[in-house]
């Protein structure tokens, strides 16, 4: 059977699966958010089942203050190198794209290696915006090690690395969320999680075992249409039978035990710390910060960064969208004041944000 025919067969099964009304599955990976909408998979779900987007987009959960810090650095004449996504994210008063239009040195790079090479090539003070989850953290750690090895004196990192399992724990109420104490955990009423494929390649499937104690299952999924559809089938079947497991449905890339070497490199450069998540508030032990031995690479120590805080944007419901409590259209700014060509919140600006995916793919 050709791959397309296989996909159509699975899609047909998904559409006709009996499911309890009000069944919600949450995905927590920006690339899944986009893939699902790009392939139109939310339209293949059986009656009564909804796919909800959680905090899967690293750019979206980065506090606004981070952009303000980057803008401050750019204005001091430091060359800012970043993944392309971050450039259009609005901070309190400006964005990196605007700073570039004003003549500051702001460049998009594909890899932190390119940022280090840029620093070596230009000789200018260069900071790389280290944003991402566990897929990206080892890569950034490796570059930190390289920078020390090469004694790169003009390279530093502005970190905002976050960890996925603590966010999941906060969502299901296992750890209290900073500013959401009064509300029921966002994860209540969930049937299970579609788990991030490449984060799992690093952390392994047992990092999610805590879900089982809450009667929740999880399926680690790849990013092709056939991966996502087959993973949804597995999740719904588990939920139907009342059996809860963590299933690795991406064995061609993910080993059950994850990538120990990568975790080791991560741990060499970074230590776990508490942090603020946009939309979720403060979550303990949910971020990575440079270890003391690497303090020389910390942009926050190297430069005086002045940040003024701005009042929160009225009407923006990014926080609730990020927790999967509402869909993008529920936000009063969605598609009106807040659009891909004129984004107000991170969920619209990031290519992996729920709001952006919703507008772009329908």
């Amino acid at each position, binding site marked *: 059977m050709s791959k*397309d025919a296989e*996909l159509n067969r699975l899609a047909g099964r998904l559409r006709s699966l009996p499911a309890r009304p009000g069944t919600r599955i949450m995905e927590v990976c920006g690339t899944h958010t986009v893939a699902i*909408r790009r392939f*139109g*998979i939310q339209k293949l779900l059986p009656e009564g089942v909804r796919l909800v987007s959680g905090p899967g987009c690293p750019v979206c959960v980065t506090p606004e203050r981070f952009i303000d810090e980057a803008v401050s650095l750019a204005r001091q004449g430091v060359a800012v190198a970043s993944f392309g996504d971050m450039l259009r994210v609005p901070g309190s008063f400006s964005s990196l794209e605007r700073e570039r*239009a004003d003549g500051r040195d702001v460049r998009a790079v*594909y890899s932190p290696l*390119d940022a280090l090479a840029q620093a070596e090539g230009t000789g200018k003070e260069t900071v790389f915006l280290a944003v991402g989850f566990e897929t990206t953290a080892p890569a950034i750690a490796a570059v930190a090690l390289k920078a020390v090895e090469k004694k790169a004196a003009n390279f530093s990192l502005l970190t905002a690395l976050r960890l996925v399992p603590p966010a999941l724990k906060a969502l299901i109420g296992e750890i209290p969320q900073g500013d959401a104490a009064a509300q029921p955990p966002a994860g209540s009423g969930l049937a299970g999680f579609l788990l991030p494929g490449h984060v799992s390649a690093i952390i392994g499937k047992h990092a999610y075992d805590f879900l089982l104690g809450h009667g929740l299952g999880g399926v680690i999924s790849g990013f092709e249409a056939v991966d996502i559809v087959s993973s949804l089938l597995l999740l719904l079947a588990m939920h139907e039978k009342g059996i809860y497991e963590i299933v690795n449905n991406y064995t061609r890339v993910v080993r059950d035990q994850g990538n120990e070497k990568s975790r080791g490199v991560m741990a060499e450069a970074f230590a776990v710390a508490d942090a603020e998540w946009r939309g979720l508030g403060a979550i303990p032990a949910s971020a990575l910060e440079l270890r003391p031995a690497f303090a020389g690479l910390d942009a926050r120590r190297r430069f005086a960064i002045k940040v003024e805080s701005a009042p929160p944007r009225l009407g923006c419901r990014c926080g609730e969208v990020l927790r999967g409590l509402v869909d993008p259209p529920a936000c009063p700014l969605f598609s009106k004041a807040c659009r*891909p060509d004129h984004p107000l919140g991170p969920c619209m600006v990031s290519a992996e944000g729920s709001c952006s995916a919703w507008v772009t793919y329908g």
Partner: protein
Amino acid sequence: MDKVLLAHGGGGSKSAELVERVFQRFLRDPLLLEMGDAARLPGRSGGAFTTDSFVVRPAFFPGGDIGRLAVCGTVNDLAVMGAEPLYLSIGFIIEEGFPVRDLERVLASIAIACRQSGARIVCADTKVVERGKADGIYINTSGIGRPVFKKPVHASRVKPGDAVLINGPLGLHGIAVLTARNEFGLKASVKSDVAPLWGLIRKCRALDVPFMRDPTRGGLAQTLNELVRKRRFGARIVEAELPIPKKVAAVCDLLGFDPLHVANEGKVVMVVAEKDAEKALRLLRRHPLGKGARRIGAITAVHPGRVVMATRAGSERIVMPPVGEILPRIC
């Protein structure tokens, strides 16, 4: 908006915003506001007239260079109006220090492209600016053409049921320029498809062709969205029918681009009545630039003003035009 941003030059919705909110407040001639690829001049001799500027970086890329692009970009804007390209003007802005040898390469390319397209350069101008003020070389070309197609090529004549055709593989030019820039450390053997299209397009001159456009900046998504915008019809394309070469797909997957947003410089999107579709494809396939011609979708009555795509997963999703710069200075 108080400053022009790089995103305004991307050919996507931000470019449209700059044109509509700033340019059109001052430049309001009815012929200009029609916003076709070329203007149809009134009167008995009524020719087609168009202009385009070229700022591609780097100036030399696999499959072509800024000179070839400058000729093909303009002759193609005429060709997709159903007009035979006749005469071109060309203006150069050259940065002090630009190697004469490179200038010779550019000029040689221009000469070859003119021969291939049949257009004659009959007036030219050159300016030189100080080092640092023009990044090598910028070129502007304007072109005059003679309408040849039986009926006017105009989107108002497109109807639901019409077939949407493309002459070959998508994404080649944008990816070729991207990899030539070496910004992402990628090396790829993708060649730009930059080519003059009149020889191909004229094969269909006896047919009734309501719409043609070359999907340059902003890619196929931009072109189709421009076609359906504010009209009473929509477009539906089929993902499995889109010819996207493996190499283009690999780069797009790696960097997170949508192949539908990547620029093409040797492609024409053609809309014809369903009854003429097979004939049009046969005619196109007779030409070297049309060997890969295929049907990719249809004009629909449902979802007017929108472009949707039937996905491989058996579902549907909308196709939005790109926002801002995907890749700056792609043509």
